[in-house]
């Protein structure tokens, strides 16, 4: 029983990581950059939905579930616009620049978002109201599963399947894959590279908004640095699964969440991150391109 409940909380956490990692992996695959601001977009999604839910539910008298949907949609819209703006203003001018310059810019954007949030929302953390409350009790109360965990896992699976279909079936999805392989060649084939990259950032940021809502629903403390650690963990998950690979990000996220949950429960709360990172290191030593990544040796 205990084992099952740890597994469920691991799946819950892992699904949040997976959703963030899916966005991360798409952006990395196409822009080949470590977007350290991705985690902060999650935080923005959390704050937008927090204020929206508060305002809509209290002032309009609409039912809670409907207010929650409005809040989530609003968060997605704001984050999508934010993501496209960040890409257009900060990253696009640096497309020809060395990757380190882009990395530092991403760090600058991350600081910018965090400190803007600090100024607007204050340093005091907010207690997030979960968009879905209650638990499902099984085995006469021996095992209780929060509805939010179930929702998170379901949403994660839907997103994974949706993205897989999107990248393999649609024209835009194929354009994304082409750009991630070779931007120059894609451009020669008539693909609008800038538009494709913008779209990728839009999707990645919308996913970050969803992740923000689900993350804060499960772990209700919201502050300007809320997104940093999950962002890093999700990136770890993406690398773990094989960066650039959608099923890899999904698998990596889930595994990471489960490992973290079990490590906290059975080994040590203090060393949970250490264990997660140690597993990552071991995986990369055995499979240098991650679990599902393809290792492409340099051509001589």
């Amino acid at each position, binding site marked *: 029983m205990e084992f099952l409940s740890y597994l469920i909380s691991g799946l819950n956490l892992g699904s949040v990581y997976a959703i963030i990692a899916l966005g991360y992996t798409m952006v*990395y695959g196409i822009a080949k950059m470590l977007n350290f601001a991705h985690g902060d977009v999650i935080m923005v999604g959390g704050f937008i939905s927090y204020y929206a839910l508060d305002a809509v539910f209290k002032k309009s008298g609409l039912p809670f579930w409907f207010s929650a949907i409005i809040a989530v949609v609003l968060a997605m819209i704001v984050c999508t616009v934010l993501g496209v703006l960040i890409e257009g203003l*900060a990253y696009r001018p*640096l497309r020809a620049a060395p990757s380190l310059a882009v990395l*530092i810019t991403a760090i*600058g954007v991350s600081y*910018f978002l965090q*400190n803007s949030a600090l100024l607007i929302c204050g340093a005091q953390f907010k207690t997030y109201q979960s968009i879905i409350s209650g638990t499902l009790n099984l085995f006469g109360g021996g095992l209780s599963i929060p509805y939010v965990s179930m929702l998170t896992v379901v949403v994660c699976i839907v997103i994974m399947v949706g993205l897989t279909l999107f990248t393999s079936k649609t024209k835009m999805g194929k354009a994304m894959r082409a750009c991630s392989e070779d931007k120059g060649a894609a451009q020669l084939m008539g693909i609008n590279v800038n538009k494709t990259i913008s779209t990728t950032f839009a999707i990645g940021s919308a996913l970050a908004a969803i992740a923000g809502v689900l993350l804060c629903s499960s772990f209700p403390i919201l502050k300007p640095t809320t997104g940093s650690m999950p962002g890093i963990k999700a990136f770890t998950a993406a690398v773990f699964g094989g960066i650039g690979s959608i099923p890899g990000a999904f698998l990596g996220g889930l595994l990471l969440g489960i490992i973290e949950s079990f490590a906290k429960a059975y080994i040590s709360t203090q060393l949970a991150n250490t264990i997660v*990172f140690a597993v990552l290191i071991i995986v990369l*030593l055995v499979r240098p*391109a991650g679990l599902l990544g393809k290792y492409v040796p340099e051509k001589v």
Partner: protein
Amino acid sequence: MSKKLKKLSGAPKRDYFSYLLVTAAFILITALNGGGLLSKQMQGLLVPVCCYIIMALSLNLTVGIMGELSLGHAGFMSLGAFSGVVVSQSLITAVPNDALRLVISIAVGAVVAAFAGFLIGLPVLRLRGDYLAIVTLAFGEIIMDVINCLIVGHDANGLHVIFNFRGDKTVADLDLAEGGVAIIKGAQGAVGTKTISTFTAGFIIILITLFIVLNFIRSRTGRAVIAIRDNRIAAESVGVDVMKYKMIAFVISTTLAGMAGALYGLNFSMISADKFNFNTSILVLVFVVLGGLGNMLGSIIAATVLYILPEALRGLQDYRMLIYAIVLILVMLATNNPKVRNLFLRIIPKRKSAEGGTAK
């Protein structure tokens, strides 16, 4: 003949200029301080600035010269800091002379960080590019977590160490004899440290670091490392052992970070492992990139200016980090995008000459 030898050593004038500038700055600041012209706040910044300069030089060796992105460099600083503090606090009675104890502590901090650099380098340096970066990040976090679990004390019987990974131990479990002191108290970090770091010590270590890094770059080993950065496959084809030379550069880099850490740790009576988190690694990386990859003088200047800048902006309170972020983004855009650069030059024509001078 001497001119020819100078040419042979490959040291451009900028190398000598770096030594000169650091020395001049030291003399100037010492004079200002002696004249009572430095505020208390500024005085407090002197040693940390030295530490971050050393960190920037150290990281520039890894990122600029070796060409590998390290996102966990603060971890090595942390190892240096805590091992330095433990040694210094343990030797208070045995070595009453502060300066001598500082030297010993820094040496131990360097050795510990070097050893850790070697162990971590073994797996890390086999990886490439962003995979390597993410693993250095992972090791940085691991080092932080592990130090957070340490409880260390010292008494007449020697060192007592507990690895508090379940979070249920306290200082009382150290069983210290009468007169013993706790040096590291788990997540609280090192407390009650006797601060023995001095600005002069910082200056000397900067000079040593510069000497090591600059001479390294212009030696056979340094050339091999740069060759690997420029073209790994070609370097292998002329018989350069990639793993070996990357390891040498990395260990030197972590050794220097350990020295910086020991100096830093012994500058504060309290310090916790969280101080050396991912953000600190990033902070140093920003110094290195803005100062110019492989440009040691640039690292020194960038570390000094960027470390003091947020402190100087304290008057702006909450806005200072926001301004810092915006400046960071604008500088990256201006230095890497010709269009943005031209825009800047048009808006601020006066700075044209200044930017032209520092662009290289």
